């Protein structure tokens, strides 16, 4: 495993090294990260980055297949417009994680900030997924046009597992939340839908991975406790205009 020391490197210097090394290294460990931005941006499959310290904003922006493991917390904008790949964060992440994300998976051990999963969209085979172990802030899944968000709410009461205005402007995708969440927490474009066989299969698969990554006992999570939320329609503002 290649080891890089990010100490005193600017984000540009550091990313130049990563971009150069990634095509020939299967695994790169980067230590002493101190908020450098855009780590792993546009990286393709074939390389896993192990990050020690704090990666800065826009971690994995436009990422295209690489894997990233963050040993601690991440900041804002994780997976911004990410296309493909996987990110595992052994801590919490900040606001707008998964903005306009189109593919790949992000696992967060604990909480995430505001506007997570905003504008997430899916296309064909590409279905982006966010698996959040703790709670999410306001506006989770805002304008969501596709993909999957799973909130486990570990350590929180169901009421606290999401903020307000969840799914405002949502017109695609689905959100799974563990436990009964009061209706006022959701935007008016969202409705609850019945869980089906396929939903349980998906949840089981993703939660299994979560438990493996973060060493959490699977038996503590009962799939029967999940509720599914979907958009009322794919055209939330279709009747807004006078033609």
């Amino acid at each position, binding site marked *: 495993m290649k080891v890089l020391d990010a100490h005193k490197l600017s*984000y*540009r210097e550091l*990313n130049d090294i990563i*971009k150069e090394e990634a095509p020939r290294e299967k695994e790169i460990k980067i230590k002493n990260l101190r908020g450098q*931005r*855009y780590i792993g*941006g*546009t990286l393709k499959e074939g390389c896993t980055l192990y990050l020690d310290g704090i990666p800065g*904003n*826009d971690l994995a*922006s*436009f*990422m*295209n297949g690489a894997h990233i493991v963050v040993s601690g917390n991440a900041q*804002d*904008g994780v997976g*911004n*417009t990410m*296309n493909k790949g996987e990110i595992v964060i052994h801590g919490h992440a900040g606001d*707008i994680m998964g*903005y*306009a994300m*189109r593919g790949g998976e992000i696992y967060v051990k604990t909480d995430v900030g505001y*506007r997570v999963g*905003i*504008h997430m*969209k*899916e*296309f064909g085979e*590409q279905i982006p997924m966010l698996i959040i172990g703790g709670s999410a802030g306001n506006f989770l899944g*805002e*304008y969501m*046009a*596709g993909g999957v968000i799973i909130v486990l709410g570990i350590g929180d009461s169901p009421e606290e597992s999401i903020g307000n205005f969840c799914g405002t*402007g949502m*017109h*695609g995708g689905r959100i799974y939340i563990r436990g009964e969440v009061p209706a006022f927490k959701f935007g008016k474009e969202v409705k609850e839908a019945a869980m089906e066989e396929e939903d349980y299969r998906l949840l089981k698969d993703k939660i299994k991975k979560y438990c493996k990554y973060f060493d959490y006992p699977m038996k503590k999570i009962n799939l029967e406790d999940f509720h599914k939320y979907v958009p009322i329609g*794919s*055209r*939330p*503002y*279709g*009747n*807004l*205009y*006078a*033609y």
Partner: protein
Amino acid sequence: MGFSMLAPEYRVDRDKDRCIDCKVCVTQCPYDVHYFDEEEEKVFAREENCVNCHRCVVLCPTRALIIRKYPLEFRENSAWKDIDIRQLQKQAETGGILLSGMGNPKPLPVFWDKILLNASQVTNPSIDPLREPMELKTFLGRKPERLEIGCDGSLKTKISPQLELSAPVMFSAMSFGSISLNACRVLAEAAEQLGIYYNTGEGGLHQSLFKFADHTVVQVASGRFGVNSEYLKIGAGIEIKIGQGAKPGIGGHLPGEKVREEVAATRMIPLGTDAISPAPHHDIYSIEDLRQLIFALKEASDYEKPVSVKIAAVHNVAAIASGIARAGADIITIDGFRGGTGAAPTRIRDNVGIPIEFAISAVDNRLKEEGIRNQVSVVAAGSIRNSADIVKAVALGADAVYIGTAALLAMGCHLCRKCYMGKCSWGIATQQPHLVKRLNPEIGRERLVNLITGWKHEIKEILGGMGINAIDSLRGNRHMLRGVDLSSRELDILGIKAAGE
């Protein structure tokens, strides 16, 4: 609501002596105006549907058709004009937000027409561009503070990435979705042939247009449609869209019915869903956040492309432009209040923003005062109608202009302003296959190339008349401008003298 209280806007006059009931008008009209009555064996018109697009008139083989403004007038009233009454009635019928297509048509002053150009007489003689070289080449991007030249004469300063234009004009951002693929193709091919650039708008880049990537500015807006690492790396430049002159502070909704297979694939979204781009980028709440996105894009494109930030011309445009320059943008695009659109809420389009003429001078002044004018190029957009407008824009301080409406007019648009209906009879602002076919890309390209070729000659003539032989020498050269019918305050803001001074 079935019953409308409104009389038709247009009257279809069919000359019975000329009409041969050939039904060309019936097949050509996408608005369902003309119809053939089998019993009467005659063509009739549902005038209430007519939008005055001229399609039937132009294609009628016997010149039997004339479309007129409906001669029925409301009782005279200076406060309540016809348009006010009609719009109000429409909202009473539908309860919706009024939509409009293309730029603001209101009778607000067009300041281009109040600015006049200079020419040389006797002293500093004019130059004849037919005999002497005349340079229109324009580079867009960050210019260095100073140049360092080595002993051997080689350039030691590293120059930031630039867009190289054969003339200071580009085709504005118009997405595949708002316009047809054929129309996008016309823009791309014409840009390549002319040595300039077109802009994808927020519609992604269709596979078939990848080969024109060297002449493409790829846009990134709040919905991030069609944006991935390939898209960012393939374009010649990248533009962050913050705002648009026709709808400052408002986002875009491409209605689901326009999101057909090709549009969905290019935007990378499911078929038939609304493509929603809200006004704010939700990762940008400050100049510092804008800087973060600018550098995310630079990182993604290996610092090889200039990054533009497009904003609408609004009250504090100068301060905003300064912030954008300091955020690290290489180009600032400013879209004036007359800028075009496929669809905008009418009240926003007609009432928000400021004229581009003032915005150019305000921004140019501010950047010069702060000593950062060299850090960015300024591209002006919104209501550039002809070559003289371009010359005036450059003299006011712009590096280049974007044209949108003018480019569509060259393709055959007749400015009926119903783009938002998605039924464009000229095959431009539509996704319906039988309508899209009406725009022949080869002919469209030729017409657009003709237009810009003509404009290039005209710009050279105007420059020559001023005794200037390079467009660079005109940039910000407001001595070449004089104002008529302007207040002294307006002259001050434009930074020009009154005619006769």
